[in-house]
């Protein structure tokens, strides 16, 4: 087999792994958009905030330490303990649920019935506010995040592909675990929405607010629920991305990669978000591999958007469009 083809296969696999990450972020958007029609610009910052909070809790940092020290002239930074990863993740989930509640209680409860553009603006405000809160709570330094996921080259894949092709594929263990976790998360979300009372209520609200009210569903409750789920999805994305490249501001920019994914997959389709994420992940990796060197590289920055735009021209409703709208 020619080398080019083998490399392309490796690139494709790595693109798939990146695509999983895009899909995760897009999924957070879809959850909220379906249930409330809100395009949540803050999804990326939520991933950053979740990851920061996780690191902070794990390392036993005192939240708002800087502020406290300013006001009281103290010099405290750490509680002096370390919290095990699993417990820290659970606590972060609680924080994200609290965040969801607060967002609903203090912002969107007061904006019911407003134009989508107003709701969108509110999420822009929310994004910058949350970024500030994140800074104030945990500081803005880059943090390393380690929740014990395996890292480094996967030996088995390396050896196997070497035996077959005479060239060992480089696939990061972290990407593999991220893909597995993402798959479990998506399966869990689908089961949840199909088979539980809350899931049914979520689907009902996504379909028709009036009808949902008439069967006894509290819109407020469902909205807190979807923001919580989006918060959990953001946490998972934050963990994956943060473990790979550290927890820092740029983490919030992965949200920008979710946009072309949504253009491709449609704003209301979970399968669309996943397939869209994978297509963008693979597409931009292959493009960079094949065409990038000829035009000076760094095509990842824009290729996704071009792909999505081309797609948009031919299928404005997204990959799965109307057909799958009813499925969360």
């Amino acid at each position, binding site marked *: 087999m020619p080398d080019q083809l083998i490399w392309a296969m490796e690139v494709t696999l790595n693109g798939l792994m990146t695509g999983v990450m895009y899909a995760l972020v897009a999924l957070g958007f879809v959850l909220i958009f379906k249930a409330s029609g809100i395009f949540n610009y803050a999804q990326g910052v939520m991933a950053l905030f979740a990851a920061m909070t996780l690191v902070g809790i794990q390392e036993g940092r005192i939240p708002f330490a800087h502020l406290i020290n300013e006001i009281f002239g103290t010099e405290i930074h750490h509680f002096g303990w370390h919290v095990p990863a699993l417990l820290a993740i659970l606590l972060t989930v609680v924080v994200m649920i609290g965040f969801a509640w607060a967002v609903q209680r203090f912002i969107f409860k007061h904006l019911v019935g407003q134009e989508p553009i107003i709701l969108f603006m509110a999420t822009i405000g929310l994004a910058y506010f949350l970024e500030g809160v994140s800074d104030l709570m945990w500081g803005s330094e880059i943090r390393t995040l380690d929740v014990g996921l395996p890292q480094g080259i996967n030996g088995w894949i390396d050896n196997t592909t070497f035996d077959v092709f005479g060239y060992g594929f480089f696939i990061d263990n972290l990407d593999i675990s991220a893909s597995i976790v993402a798959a479990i998360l998506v399966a869990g979300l689908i089961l949840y929405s199909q088979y*539980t009372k809350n899931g049914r209520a979520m689907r009902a609200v996504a*379909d028709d607010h009036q*009808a949902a*009210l*008439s*069967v*006894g569903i509290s*819109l407020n409750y469902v909205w807190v629920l979807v923001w919580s789920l989006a918060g959990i999805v953001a946490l998972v994305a934050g963990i994956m991305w943060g473990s790979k490249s550290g927890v820092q501001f740029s983490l919030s920019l992965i949200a920008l990669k979710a946009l072309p994914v949504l253009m491709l997959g449609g704003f209301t389709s979970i399968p669309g978000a996943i397939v869209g994420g994978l297509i963008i992940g693979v597409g931009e990796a292959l493009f960079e591999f094949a065409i990038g060197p000829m035009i000076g590289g760094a095509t990842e920055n824009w290729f996704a958007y071009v792909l999505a735009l081309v797609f948009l021209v031919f299928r404005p409703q997204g990959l799965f469009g109307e057909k799958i*709208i009813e499925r969360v």
Partner: protein
Amino acid sequence: MNEAIHPPIDPNEGYVTEDGRRIGGVVMEMKHITLRFGGVEAIKDISFDIREGEIRAIIGPNGAGKSSMLNVISGFYNPQEGEVWYKGQIRKPMKPFQVARQGIARTFQNIALFEGMSVLDNVMTGRLNHMKASFLDQGFWWGKAQREEVENREKAEQIIDFLEIQAIRKTPVGRLPYGLKKRVELARALAAEPQILLLDEPMAGMNVEEKEDMSRFILDVNDEFGTTIVLIEHDMGVVMDLSDRVVVMDYGKKIGDGTPDEVRNNQEVIDAYLGVSHD
């Protein structure tokens, strides 16, 4: 149909209709309800009661305020003035979902279904208030959650059989013709096993045969489950046939209240309907 029978004066006393149905005491009472939209008074100081087990019609020309009244009962609108009494207690201003949880189900004049879901899923969603198992329960007590799912499923299927829509149970609602949608909406409301069922023009836009079917279903629901029914309808023949008592509204005011016969012979009601277009 029930001309000869007149309900007793005492709100707590029941009676038996000519066709042998047992009507109870007053279950819901609207007292001096006034509802405004900006400058428009959609309901002007209206009072009436609803007895347990009766079919109570609200009629009136277009824009009379009938739907508004139904929306007040179901909590979609909160009146500026007046009180709603339910089961002997005054009802605080409530959200629609809270009213629904008190056992009051409804359909809409313009149909509000879950268009993307199948008929069965729509009906199952009507049973949400009978589903208890939380997510944690479902994780830990799989058996319990499954038993509940099976019970709810059975109930939903019963209602689907009752309304004779078995053939379309798996069809996405969005693809159904208008008449069937109305029936699915009724099925979803019934799935909640409500004590009071509010129907806003359940037969609008139907042909004669569909109307006959729907009338039969409404009578059957009332008869078999003892459900109290509040019905808005334009077709006078249907109203006179189905209902035990009728409230007549015009320009937001109540201009008549009584048995179909009393209302039919009320001069103010006759005047209101003369020259007023209604379908």
